[in-house]
């Protein structure tokens, strides 16, 4: 038995019929072909599946697709939709914030939300803010520098305009 849902993903409206047990991450990956969102642990520990749900960072491996009916989702593919890298994406490239790249989409989405809430985070705040995302390659230092770069790049204007 399938349930109809309507969801806006990266600015595009989708209407689908899904099984109630279908996980959001599988909906994004298998049905919408947005494979940038990864599955790393299935227990919402690693954060590789992090997406923005109505602006909030959530783990798509432990949310059902039916729960996001009527919501707005942003995935990693939606962050550079106009072809321009977002400041966080740019920071990850500039500061070598990724190696194998598997955790990277989740990290970038989480960092994007973090900077939305706290445009000038301290190093400790960045590290705390990324606690829901595991990286096994980088040792986090370059990720922290990437987020600092993005905060700098976004600048106070962005912070004010959001305030």
């Amino acid at each position, binding site marked *: 038995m399938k349930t109809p849902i309507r969801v806006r993903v990266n600015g595009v409206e989708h209407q689908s019929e899904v*099984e109630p*047990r*279908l996980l959001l991450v*599988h909906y994004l*990956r298998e049905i919408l*072909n*947005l*494979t*940038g*969102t*990864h*599955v*790393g*642990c*299935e*227990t919402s*520990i*690693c954060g*590789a599946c992090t997406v923005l749900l109505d602006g909030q960072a959530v783990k798509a491996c432990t949310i059902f697709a039916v729960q996001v009916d009527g919501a707005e989702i942003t*995935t*990693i*593919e939606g*962050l*550079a939709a106009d072809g321009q*890298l977002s400041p966080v*994406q740019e920071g*990850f*490239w*500039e500061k*070598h914030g*990724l*190696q*194998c*790249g*598997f*955790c*990277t*989409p989740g990290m*970038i989405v989480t960092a994007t939300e973090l900077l939305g809430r706290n445009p000038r985070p301290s*190093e*400790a705040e*960045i*590290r*705390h803010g*990324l*606690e829901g*995302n*595991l*990286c*096994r*390659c*980088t*040792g*986090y*230092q*370059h*990720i*922290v520098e990437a987020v600092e770069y993005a905060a700098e790049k976004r600048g106070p204007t962005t912070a004010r305009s959001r305030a």
Partner: protein
Amino acid sequence: MGRYVGQRVKRTEDPRLIRGLAHYVDDIKLPDMLHAVFLRSVHAHARIRRIGIASATASPGVVAVYTGRDVSHKIGPVPCAAALPDLKVPDHRVLATDRVYYVGHPVAVVVATDRYAAQDALEKIAVEYEELPPVVDPEQALKGKPLVHEQFGSNVAYRLTSGEGDIESALASADKIVRQRMINQRLAPVAMEPRGVLARYFPGEQELTLWSSTQIPHLMRTQVALMLGIAENKLRVITPEVGGGFGSKLNVYAEEALLGWISIQLSRPVKWIETRRENMQATIHGRAQVGEIEIGCKKDGTVTGLRYNVVADLGAYHQLLTPAIPTLTGLMLSGAYRIPAIQMNVTGMFTNKMATDAYRGAGRPEATYVIERAMDLVAAELGMDPVEVRRKNFPAPSEFPFKTATGLTYDSGNYEAALSKALKISGYRELREQQKKARAEGRLVGIGVSSYVEICALGPSAAMPAGGWESATVRIEPTGKVTVLTGASPHGQGQETSFAQIVAEELGIDLNDITVIHGDTAIVQYGIGTFGSRATAVGGTAVLVALQRVREKATRIAAHLLQVEASRMTFANARFSALAAQAAATVGALATVPAPAADGDRSITLQEVALAAHLAKNLPPDTEPGLSATYFFEPKNFTFPFGTHIVAVEIDRETGEVQFQRYVAVDDCGKVINPMLVDGQIQGGIVQAIGQALYEEVVYDDQGQLITGTLMDYAVPKAAMIPTLELDRTETPTPENPLGVKGVGEAGTIGATPAIVGAVVDALAPFGVRHLDMPLKPETIFRAMQRTSAK
């Protein structure tokens, strides 16, 4: 430093990764694709009485269900490449047949039209087990009963003694002998991308393609072809984006061959993606050594000899390199020191657990841990500073190439330089002063030092199970674009960039005009793969030599086209030029005469030469058309990077928690192609070492049940648990390859662990603590403090 080599060049692989547009195995979808899921043993040791698959087979969407009975005689055993004298090798089939030997042992596989349907059916398989007593503790396993594999009559897989020098008299000549039992706990590699395989068989062409998350596409092709009994050149292995490996994907797994076999049976593509729970159960583990060290020393700190008796927990089966890992420990026991006699006695034990194998460092972190902890114990015994004991035993730079009592010849080194630099950056003397004051206030502050040496650039083929060379093809296309095919198989290390840097430097072309292709056996010539910190030192050298040969050919063609002698050509910025005047060179003896200038009118671009080479209308006599060269580089020796890490910690008396105050690392990996990538490797390595030192441990209970079966239970370090690392380098090139590069992938993991443990133990010195076994969880530390009250 060149225009590209030695520079912090941003990675060319990043744009696809940071936009979520890269393809890992699970991101590839093929028409008509099926999904496989595995039923795995819930028991550590049991006899399989019956497997009922009828209702699973009838479940909606199910295409096939296979058990060990269906496949075990049709697919060859899972390979072990390690050859040791009298090694016992159990028959390792892709699915369990009559018995299961560890929790996670695959018992059956369900193939269905989608993942959910396959999972539904899996739950309908009924397995009747007769439980058998499990062997969990490797030391208990020595007692002989119960047995993991009855046919061997013992749980001992092998015994091996290694090392040189007269250990008995070396220890007898010592003023003091220090003994200590030490554990290198079992760890899980936890690559963020679990394993995965997609198999596609074309029955008409009889071609099987495997997309697999592996570090060794070519070795896997050979092994899987043998397992399936198909021609190697009818099997294509592709490694798309690989989400980390750390040795866990340096293997040939049952699932890789079985998926290929299923695709052949069904003539449809079939995919399997490992869950994290499966990854914890059935992807190789690392370390797992329990040993006792004996180190003899003179009163002045001079080490006379070292013995390490160790029991290695191998698990139930041998994966690709399982029994060989402890032999690497034996090779590296001399560490950064002049030790006249060394002996390792290793006993490899079968247990009812997942196999151990190569996890980042693979036997070397164990060796470094043992020797570095031993140096700390000597220092404590003699009341010396740990730095002075290390210094006392370093070979001088003039002693290189330096022979060890483990049979190695260290290529180059300046251990004192790295140590001095680390002491200076950390302000070691001041740290010790601060420690004194802190102790007087009752605070628990400790400082740890580790001066490590590791073995990299694996390695000369004579010392490797399946070839130690690496291959490269450099091809200049008709349009002047340069394609590099490397046999290395990077999965995060960034060689698409660093190899392109080598090419751009040599040819003076733009980085974006170079494409580095790897991980496709139908495109790339045979290669060995990425592991053992070898890709740049061995694979990069292959690129360099191939490149030089292409350039040499291009020079000959350019000279022909310009109608000058090849020796009269210069090459700069992708342009060949004829030297201006013959006369200028003949008076070259006069230092003031400038080198002959290039003749601007008589020059030709690399791109023009490339086109001419392919059009082949006007080539020098006896010149093959085309512009490419392939080179297989065989290293004559390993390389031996080194460094010193200094760590300062403070322990919370109330909770036993460890707080980092400083982490200073000075590493020497020889010449550096891209310092940003080197920093990344070091940082990532150190953080995995912090994981081993403080948090991580694979725990099985006494029934062999895996307690740490998810990332909720297995503590991979998070960002907030990690200090800011202060990195620096010294640079001692290796003479073993023309790049001077030693390798860096595992250094952090190897060097850091003993420094961290040393710091914690030093902080607990007021409690009389001289050693604690990892992981140094708050509980472990708290208990140690409770055992004795501080003096």
